[in-house]
């Protein structure tokens, strides 16, 4: 079976055709303002390169930063109502309290508080008032708002009232698109509520985008199942992406790291993704990016999405080399995507990291002859500086003294020396399209993240119950049960609370049943 992976980035759309572990075709085309055109060009290109008929393709996976950019640029966001199920608690802060004013203005001031929260043990705070929710639904309808986010206190532990509110609101406001916060993430009311609001505000764009992608596939003759890659490196059906666009926010770096793992064969490694301006360094554990544990800021909004823990430095192929041999600097300013005109090896006048890598004989791109006037001492000082920057970045991400392999991907990875901090650097074949490969190989997952009271239950049995539920969820998402492996399994006790409550998190991944 052939599978196609596509990464729709801000600048380039990359596509690969794979069969089993083999990469049969790979290509980069410019991303187009209308995502569909670039996608079609990429698809048609790789199909031609691999000499495949569309009917031979069994699966297409697309990773895109389209929805993230919409939030950052405040574009295409729909007015959204927020219904917080909380009363009498949580009146002290209104929804969107800490949002940038201009983003709040785009989404609109449509916040409603009602009964329907739970305590941490899943018992109701104050019950539920159907009539109140219905009144809110009518008010939302009368205001002409058609996107709704529902966020109930402790809904990650018990989502019954969020479900009930959704049914009542759908009745009062039949054409509304609704997001439940319980589907967004773990406890942390404001962060989870923010995620739900962003998701709802993106729903109309998600529908348009996904149907555009679907139409693009159809016009290329691809009628196979179609998935999008998620923040955690697993995939979700396009129909689900239409409902949960925020879950694609971090698919870019995640796909690069997953692709690096696949291409190099390492499951535990440090990955350096070197682009034109920056280098992202992340840690792979069991073939997946290690997740950040803190809140994540998206376009000025605090969320608690599980995102890869990536450390960035201002060093890339286009970084500008300045100063003299005894005090050289590299970056953080960069010629960026203008490198193909600005760099010395391409006939330009700016000395870049790529130029010194060519001068040092490390890379062969452009015209080495154009570097005749470059001071040799400056070039080698710059290379030493680059090596030191990369070494420090890699060291920051290590979690033990164990010498993990280092994998370099991305167009700028030509800067990499053969060894970093005493460890050999692997730069696998197809390193420039690692992100599209990461999309193509994505697996499917199931996750449970909740707070459990350990009254009369052992920690181990709470973890076992969570694992069983995570496996069920993965199978429901299309995984082959026999291929499921546990990639995360942890419990973090809750401080200051007697009664031994603990936060349990289990995640399993497995191959997609096709």
């Amino acid at each position, binding site marked *: 079976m052939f599978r196609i992976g596509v990464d729709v980035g801000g600048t380039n759309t990359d596509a690969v055709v794979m069969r089993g572990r083999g990469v049969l075709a790979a290509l980069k085309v410019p991303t187009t303002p209308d995502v569909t055109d670039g996608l079609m060009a990429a698809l048609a290109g790789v199909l031609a390169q691999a000499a495949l008929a569309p009917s031979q393709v069994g699966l297409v996976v697309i990773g895109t930063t389209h929805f993230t950019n919409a939030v950052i640029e405040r574009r295409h966001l729909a007015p959204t109502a927020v219904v917080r199920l*909380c009363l009498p608690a949580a009146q*002290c*802060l209104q929804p969107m309290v800490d949002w940038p004013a201009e983003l709040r203005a785009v989404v609109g001031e449509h916040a409603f508080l009602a009964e329907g929260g739970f305590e941490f043990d899943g018992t109701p705070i104050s019950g539920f008032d159907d009539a109140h929710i219905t009144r809110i639904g009518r008010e939302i309808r009368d205001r002409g708002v058609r996107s709704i986010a529902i966020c109930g206190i402790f809904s990650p532990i018990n989502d019954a009232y969020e479900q009930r509110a959704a049914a009542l609101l759908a009745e009062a406001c039949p054409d509304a698109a609704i997001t439940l916060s319980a589907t967004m993430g773990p*406890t942390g009311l404001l962060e989870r509520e923010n995620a739900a609001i962003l998701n709802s505000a993106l729903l109309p764009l998600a529908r348009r985008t996904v149907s555009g992608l679907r139409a693009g596939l159809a016009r290329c003759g691809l009628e196979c199942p179609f998935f999008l890659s998620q923040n955690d490196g697993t995939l979700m059906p396009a129909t689900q992406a239409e409902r949960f666009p925020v879950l694609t926010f971090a698919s870019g770096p995640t796909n690069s790291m997953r692709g690096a793992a696949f291409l190099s064969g390492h499951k535990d490694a440090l990955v350096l993704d070197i682009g034109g301006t920056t280098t992202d360094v992340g840690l792979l554990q069991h073939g997946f990016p290690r997740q950040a544990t*803190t809140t994540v800021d998206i376009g000025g909004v605090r969320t608690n999405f599980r995102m890869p823990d990536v450390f960035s430095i201002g060093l890339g192929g286009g970084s500008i080399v300045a100063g003299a041999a005894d005090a050289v600097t590299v970056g953080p300013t960069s010629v960026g995507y203008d490198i193909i005109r600005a760099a010395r090896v391409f006939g330009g006048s700016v000395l870049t990291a790529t130029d010194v890598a060519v001068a040092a004989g490390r890379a062969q791109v452009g015209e080495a002859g154009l570097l005749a006037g470059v001071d040799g001492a400056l070039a080698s000082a710059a290379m030493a500086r680059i090596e030191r920057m990369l070494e420090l970045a890699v060291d920051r991400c290590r979690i033990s003294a164990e010498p993990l392999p280092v994998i370099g991907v991305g167009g700028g990875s030509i800067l990499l020396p053969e060894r970093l901090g005493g460890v050999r650097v692997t730069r696998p074949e197809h390193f420039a399209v690692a992100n599209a490969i990461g999309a193509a190989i994505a697996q499917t997952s199931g996750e449970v993240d909740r707070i459990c009271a350990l009254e009369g239950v052992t920690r181990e049995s709470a973890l076992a119950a969570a694992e069983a539920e995570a496996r069920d969820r993965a199978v429901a998402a299309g995984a082959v049960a026999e291929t499921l492996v546990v990639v995360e399994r942890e419990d973090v006790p809750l401080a200051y*609370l007697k009664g031994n409550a603990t936060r349990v998190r289990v995640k399993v991944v497995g191959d997609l049943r096709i």
Partner: protein
Amino acid sequence: MRTLTESDIEALAIGAAILGTGGGGNPYIGKLHCLQELRGGARVELVGLDELADDAFVVSIGGIGAPAVSVEKLEEGREGYRAVRALEAYCGRKASALIAAEIGGGNSMAPIITAAQLGIPVVDGDGMGRAFPEMQMTTYSIYGHSSVPAALADERGNVVLFREVRSEQWFERLARANVVAMGGTAVGAEAPMSGRYVKRAAVPGTVSQAIALGHIVMAANRAHANPVASICAQERGRHLMDAKIVDLKRHLEGGFSVGTIRLDGIDRDGGTVADIVFQNEFLMFRRNGVVEVCVPDLVILLDADNGRAITTDVLRYGQRVAVIALPCHALLRTPEALAVVGPAAFGLEGVTYTPLAAVAPPPADHPNTPYR
């Protein structure tokens, strides 16, 4: 006396997290709540201990419960107000000012929020000078003032009044059981004290200390500079080491997150190994197995990049941290205080408290000289 500004509140959130020594809960929600009160037109005055009248009637206030619950079940908003009003009704006297039970972490915000609602000032001081896990660990209680009468309020409108308790430990035990019944969080107004007593027993100046710390970090962040040296200079503390977390063991014990962090030195500290024992807060720092700093002195982990405090609930392998130690106030170093908040009180057997010496301020012409 001065009026607290929005910028003070931003700074207080950062500084109070640092003084939280890994615990005390995140001040983020409380900060937003404070800002909302100020933007709504409330004015809150910060008064120094020396400005308090001897016959002032000062109430200690703070949130009690699990920070993990308080970030999910946010407050109704007037819990503190109801608790203070109940206490006033019982005592037959209006509070003239509020004071924090605990400056470290989220509890730094509680007196400001309630003072804004009551229209009374906040005293520049607290009962810990840092964060501690239990309510009897305040200097108010250590120096002989009873925590009761006290009132606990939840978001529903329940208010529980404690009139008499057999001991401070009984108060802690009964209050905590109430908090669990209230769903994991509550606001408590306790220990109504005379101005005369507060002047003697409160750790002085800790609100402005936390605000100053926060301003140092904010200024360093704006300048893309590392604030660690400035923090140590300001507080006459010690920069113990720059390190990476290489092991983390933690488990739950009687409602506390208890564990050990193992650190490997980096950069100039390469080759040094150390560990930190914690019980919600960081209790003790050992270098190469030798105790260097322990409670009640402050052991603090800062993010190596931005100088922000790292709390015990977000510790993780591989984190790069600056470990610093700040001397606690003399009120926490007396025999009576050490019996309650010294190493033995936290079960650190065989550890003798040796006060951390305040570091001499750096030469005036080298304000940022790293010294250690």
